[in-house]
């Protein structure tokens, strides 16, 4: 029972972390309500119905999150300044490392949950056999380790991308050629005149 409670709390915290991926305005306005709804839905969706149900619940939650993330960021950025600003903002903002971080986070969380159920992992079994360490502790420790690794790798990727300005070729690929061609044609036209 205590394990279920702590898993519920951990899931809620994890969901709150995922809400950080939303645009700040949307998150501030609806974040607490979304957490409240998650708190309401979680007991019915994920608890006490086996691992398959738990996995299905998280799959549903993450799918919903992914779809609404794209929509909300699009709504936040696109109508104001257009697609150019959207690409530029995405490239410059912290959304990229946060996105990478969240993917690793999800992977780490799934792995952590799986280790509870796959007792054939040698070190997991050895830790579990220690009477002082519960399976919840094991999940938390594994998740923290995965998250730390994810954060370091995401920050490193972001730093490399910014130093090398990796987003510039992408922006040029989509935006600059059209402008350059247009300028070149105008110059040709002027010369012909």
């Amino acid at each position, binding site marked *: 029972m205590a394990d279920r409670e702590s898993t519920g709390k951990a899931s809620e915290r994890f969901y709150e972390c995922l809400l950080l991926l939303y645009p700040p305005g949307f998150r501030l306005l609806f974040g607490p309500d979304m957490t409240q709804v998650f708190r309401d839905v979680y007991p019915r969706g994920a608890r006490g119905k086996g691992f398959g149900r738990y996995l299905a619940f998280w799959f549903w939650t993450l799918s*919903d999150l992914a*779809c609404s993330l794209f929509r*909300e960021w699009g709504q936040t950025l696109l109508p104001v300044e257009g697609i150019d600003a959207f690409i530029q903002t995405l490239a410059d903002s912290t959304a990229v490392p946060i996105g990478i971080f969240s993917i690793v986070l999800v992977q780490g969380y799934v792995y952590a949950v799986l280790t509870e159920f796959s007792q054939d992992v040698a070190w997991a079994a050895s830790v579990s056999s220690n009477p002082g360490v519960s399976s919840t502790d094991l999940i938390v420790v594994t998740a923290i380790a995965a998250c730390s690794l994810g954060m370091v790798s995401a920050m490193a990727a972001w730093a490399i991308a910014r130093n090398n300005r990796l987003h510039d070729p992408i922006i040029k690929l989509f935006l600059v050629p059209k402008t350059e061609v247009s300028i070149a044609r105008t110059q040709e036209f002027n010369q012909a005149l």
Partner: protein
Amino acid sequence: MIKNEPKTTGRFSSAQPPLAPAVFYILLALADRDLHGYAIMQRVRARSAGAVRLGPGTLYGALSRMLKEGLIVELEDRPDPEMDDARRRYYRSTDRGNRALAAEAKRLGDLARLAHATRAVRELKQA
């Protein structure tokens, strides 16, 4: 009491583009009573016989757009303060929202009549 009264006064007619399914179901859920987010989710699920299951992201994304468009308003009062959590926010469908719902219902009704009039559907019904 209504919080953030919308300034939108546009008129919804059958010429309006179709409503998104989530928006339609939310308006349907709010048609006869004020509800909070989780209650909307439950009502949508019940009214669609489990076919439509709104997640928190989809629900609040739709509510955000509906608030901007003036289809719903947020209430300051709780319909039943003793029965519920004070942290929850309640929503109410506006006249504009009701008109949008009616226009969409008419559009779907017209489409259904059109479909029932086709030979393919008639043959299936007879079979």
